[in-house]
């Protein structure tokens, strides 16, 4: 067995494979299919200050090698998480990371502050792809200053590992990554979903109630890989890579591009136990390439 442990800020993961927010529930939904204790970590569903009903149905449309979703952060709010879900999670032996989402700066701060008090949650993933209702619905993560402001304020109240999840719907993802690193992010994770759209030509209607939605799955992988590579070169903090990872080979590509850990998202819908296969496959790869540790391949892309 190669050494698969990896570090993100103060957080040590037993292996670099995390399940992505919004695709793995709270882990409990998957108990019939795999031993979740074997995962490096689990990013739970996007959690907001108040309960959210999300968007109307239809919220999902399949696209070639991928899917669009417009779930709209349906969740029962951070207090429900703390009182009802969190106590059930503390029996597991994996790192639970809470994906913190919001529609105002104050929402993010208050939610992060509440999560900070939970001893069993070692990290948050700050989802800055959410629309800022006070800025006409522009996502926090598409503007350097807005992104930096929310990270800076959350940093003041959140004292454990702070991972900032970047939106790919920007012209220059590197500048956003640098801006959040500068104000105290311990790591960045990318990519969130790409804004897309699907139409039913017969009915001449959009396939999502919201018309546009977030694209994920293997179809986004080349874009995700490119962004991870660019960001990993520009920042000193660890990069958590994701976007279309469906097997160990995909994961290895992200490590080579510079990711310190990876997240598996949409692939969980097709193979609920895929993450364990990824862990096994990464280990096999390391042994086959005579590497002792996952660190040997992080950023090891040969460019000449």
């Amino acid at each position: 067995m190669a050494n698969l442990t990896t570090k993100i800020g103060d957080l040590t993961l037993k292996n670099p494979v995390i399940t992505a927010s919004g695709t793995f529930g709270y882990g409990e939904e998957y108990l019939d299919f795999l031993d979740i204790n074997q995962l490096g970590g689990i990013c739970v569903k996007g959690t907001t200050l108040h309960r959210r009903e999300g968007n109307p149905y239809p919220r999902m449309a399949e696209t070639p090698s991928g899917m669009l979703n417009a779930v709209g952060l349906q969740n029962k709010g951070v207090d429900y998480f703390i009182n009802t879900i969190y106590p059930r999670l503390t029996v597991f032996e994996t790192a639970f990371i809470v994906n913190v989402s919001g529609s105002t700066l104050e929402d993010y701060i208050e939610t992060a502050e509440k999560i900070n008090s939970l001893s069993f949650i070692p990290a948050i993933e700050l989802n800055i792809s959410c629309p800022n209702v006070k800025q006409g619905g522009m996502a926090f993560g598409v503007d350097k200053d807005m992104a930096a402001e929310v990270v800076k304020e959350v940093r003041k109240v959140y004292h454990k590992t702070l991972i900032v999840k970047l939106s790919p719907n920007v012209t220059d993802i590197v500048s956003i990554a640098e801006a959040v690193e500068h104000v105290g992010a311990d790591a960045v994770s990318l990519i969130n979903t790409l804004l897309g759209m699907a139409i039913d030509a017969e009915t001449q209607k959009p396939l999502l109630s919201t018309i546009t939605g977030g694209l994920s799955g293997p179809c986004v992988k080349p874009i995700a890989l490119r962004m991870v590579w660019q960001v990993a070169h520009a920042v000193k903090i660890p990069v958590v890579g994701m976007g279309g990872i469906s097997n160990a080979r995909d994961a290895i590509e992200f490590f080579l591009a510079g990711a310190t850990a990876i997240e598996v998202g949409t692939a969980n819908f097709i193979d609920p136990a895929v993450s364990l296969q990824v862990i096994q496959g990464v280990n096999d790869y390391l042994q086959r390439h005579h590497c002792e540790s996952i660190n040997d391949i992080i950023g090891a892309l040969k460019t000449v």
Partner: protein
Amino acid sequence: MKKIIGDLVVSENIPLKNNHFLLKLTQAEPLPHILPGQFVQLKIDDTPSVFLRRTFSINYVDRKKNEIWLLIQVVGDGTRSLSNCKIGDSLNLIYPLGNSFSMPTSSQSRLLLVGGGVGVAPLLFLGAILAEKGFSPSFLLGARNIDGLIELEKFQQFGDVYIATEDGSAGEIGFVTDHSILKNSFDKIYTCGPTPMMQAISQFAENQFIDCEVSLENKMACGIGACLCCVTQTHQGNQCVCTDGPVFNTKELAWQI
């Protein structure tokens, strides 16, 4: 109920009329307990256009032969590819998923099962279980025309079958909601089919104060309550059709009817 992910082998693939086919799947080990109304998520290793699993109701469980039946209508690439399955092919399923139709209470004896199109699929297994438990269910099945009526002889094994076709080519002419059988009294109605049909039946049941359960077919990604893509509006807010359903009592649903 424990959900299983595993491979089943195609034991029969029977082409039926009107682009339907009946797929029978089996395995050496005994099948888990399966309830009427439950469904499967089937993986189709195919082209990029069939990326997610495909959702199908469990049409029937033959416990003697250890078989699960799926009644499928070809509507796109995934179902077309499945229709070409050969005996002995192995298919990966996640099952049994979802809740189930509830059994009638002791005061409910006059039962009507209303199906439209391929929505009749889960009603066969429900009818079989009801008959097994000593009830005499009646079936009201609707289709555009005579070719759209699938598995009629199988339904007839478990109860009286009434038919409505839009063109009058079989049974009474019109929609199921126009059928004269609805003049009789019923204690409970179960329905699955196109949304407008289920809404009309729900409305009818509500007007007549009849207990009514519908089985919804919202599009799914995960099928296990993780993605929240399949929601329907209920009086308790959005609920997942894949885990809180697919069967809902119409009293729970916040339908615009």
